[in-house]
């Protein structure tokens, strides 16, 4: 039974939550504010807020200097495509690991997770050569495959955790009622694990959207997503922080909006099975 909080304790908890939330959000807020400053104001020391020179010029220049819609579209295709392909492979895999585990299932899960601990640069040249031979450099399909492979361990782990919460007896009952293997996965398991699948999907879209190593290494012009768009506004010589901030704000805005509208789904999925 939940214990009631005293008003003082409630106030303190709320204040602490707001403080942590603002602390986490502050870099994004500062980036958005910087994107509306002039370059000298953006780098002024001490940092300027009320006395800053405000402008919309950075957005106008970033828009004029690059083909934002193309980068945006590439990001959408790559992140959604890699997520859907990943789910297609991960759902059967997670089903097998959750409901018909073998002796080595735990080891296999750990091995998959360990691949995420490897620095990406370690496999850069082999993967680049592989993609080059297969004609996949600077193609959207190439990036969809690459990002799907990068995020597959996380998708399988998340789905495995959700599937483990579903009683195996329900699946057994469906089998006794004559459901085929695919029928069991599609009509019984998937609807029951929908919140988990949805949150996995959303999280993977966010991960793929924000991926900035492979998307820059494996693309030049045709398939370059918003991470490459941001990278093009960094400069070794000269002031660029305000324009870079404007480019970054334009790149993260779509995913922020998606996250905002799906936050209920995300939280529901991420806490799925946390409280019994």
């Amino acid at each position: 039974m939940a214990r009631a909080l005293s008003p003082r304790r409630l106030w303190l908890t709320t204040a602490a939550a707001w403080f942590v939330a603002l602390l986490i959000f502050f870099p994004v807020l500062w980036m958005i504010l910087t994107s509306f400053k002039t370059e000298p104001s953006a780098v002024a020391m001490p940092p300027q807020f009320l006395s800053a020179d405000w402008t919309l010029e950075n957005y106008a220049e970033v828009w004029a200097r690059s083909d934002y819609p193309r980068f945006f579209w590439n990001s959408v295709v790559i992140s959604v495509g890699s997520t859907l392909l990943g789910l297609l492979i991960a759902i059967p895999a997670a089903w097998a690991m959750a409901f018909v585990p073998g002796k080595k299932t735990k080891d296999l899960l750990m091995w998959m997770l360990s691949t995420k601990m490897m620095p990406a640069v370690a496999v850069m040249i082999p993967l680049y050569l592989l993609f080059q031979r297969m004609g996949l450099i600077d193609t959207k399909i190439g990036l969809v495959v690459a990002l799907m492979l990068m995020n597959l361990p996380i998708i399988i782990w998340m789905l495995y955790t959700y599937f483990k919460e579903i009683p195996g007896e329900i699946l057994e009952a469906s089998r006794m009622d004559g459901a085929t293997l695919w029928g069991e996965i599609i009509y019984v398991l998937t609807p029951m694990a929908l919140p988990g699948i949805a949150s996995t999907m959303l999280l993977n879209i966010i991960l793929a959207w924000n991926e900035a190593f492979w998307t820059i290494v494996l693309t030049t012009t045709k398939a370059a997503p918003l991470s490459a768009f941001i990278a093009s506004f960094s400069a070794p010589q000269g002031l660029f922080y305000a324009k870079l901030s404007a480019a970054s704000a334009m790149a993260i805005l779509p995913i922020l909006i998606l996250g905002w509208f799906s936050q209920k789904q995300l939280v529901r999925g991420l806490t799925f099975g946390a409280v019994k």
Partner: protein
Amino acid sequence: MTKTLRALMGATALVALAGVASAETTITVATVNNGDMVRMQGLMDDFNAKHPDIKVEWVTLEENVLRQNVTTDIATGGGQYDVITIGTYEVPIWGKQGWLESLNDLPAEYDVDDLLPAIRGGLTVDGNLFAAPFYGESSMVMYRKDLMEAAGMTMPDAPTWADIEAAAKAMTNRDADINGICLRGKAGWGENMAFLTAMSNSFGARWFDEAWVPQFDQPEWKATLDFYLNLMNNYGPAGASNNGFNENLTLFNQGKCGMWIDATVAASFVTGKDSTVADKVGFALAPDNGLGKRGNWLWAWSLAVPASSDAKAEAKIFIDWATNKDYLALVASKEGWANVPPGTRTSLYSNEEYAKVPFAKMTIDSINSADPTAPTVKPVPYVGVQFVAIPEFQGLGTTVGEIFSAALAGSKTADEALAEAQAVVTDEMKAAGYIQ
């Protein structure tokens, strides 16, 4: 029947002609994001009008990311890029590897002999020009004329390091948040080591002797590092070990540096609209120590064609357009002479209009005083003023840069830093087979 046949043949010919007329070659140009490159992208209408059959696509990346991507592509023969922007460090190495297409066949009107000899020399390997300079730079002293005047001092056109120290001392005013001098301290082969290697040349130091033996245990390097640390600790800004070009540019433009020794391209920034001291800046050559070598570097961002490109002819047409005399005139007509890419052609510096640009003379004098083939007082087995043109240098330079940056931050002494640098470089050179 004959009429129909003729009509059909005519239509076929027209379609074929239309196909030829619309045949378009796309070239991909990889470049860095700096003012001159952005300006070039804004002037592409001129290129498109002259070459409607060549479509140019741009890949603009941060310098280190560009270097990584282009190196990966070229080393694996990927052919993703048709024109690449590379620095003076890469050209001799990549040229020798056979990774770059020779530009010896550029048209006669290009006038290769007009390229500045120091810059051209750095882009040529065994008589082959492997890259065309887009802009060249050296380094020089930028100083506050008003602060010097207030201190009752005059900056010589060719100062010594002793002059610099005296000026830094006189201009430092901690109460007014003015640092006598701002120099690079951020670790990196192209950051603090570009400055320190160039500076060490004027102290007679060198990275390696003729037998490739590292020289950080020699008195010239100790004199260099001691002088640098003393100057920065006494008259430099707080947290200088984190400062690179952009951080120092910000400090100088906000009036917080009495002097700044850095790239000549900074001149247009410190006298530009974003500077609060634009009308108070003077220029002088990089300092010396009376040993016959100045502490200035030599660098050029250049355009080259990777050997793996499948549109080499079109790539060369683009490079010709972007780096010839007409392009300089085009920039001058649209953006003014002060915005013309500097440091590439002799003819630019004999142009009366360009001579009126305040930093023009000091830029060319600085470039001319750097010699990549004989960078320091003693003989060396390598080419390069602020770098050593061997593949191992990127890693070595960054490692030594981190050690020297730590010394500036106060976490080790100059002697400890030099001993560590000597040990690290010796190990690496042994592993690479240069020495036993």
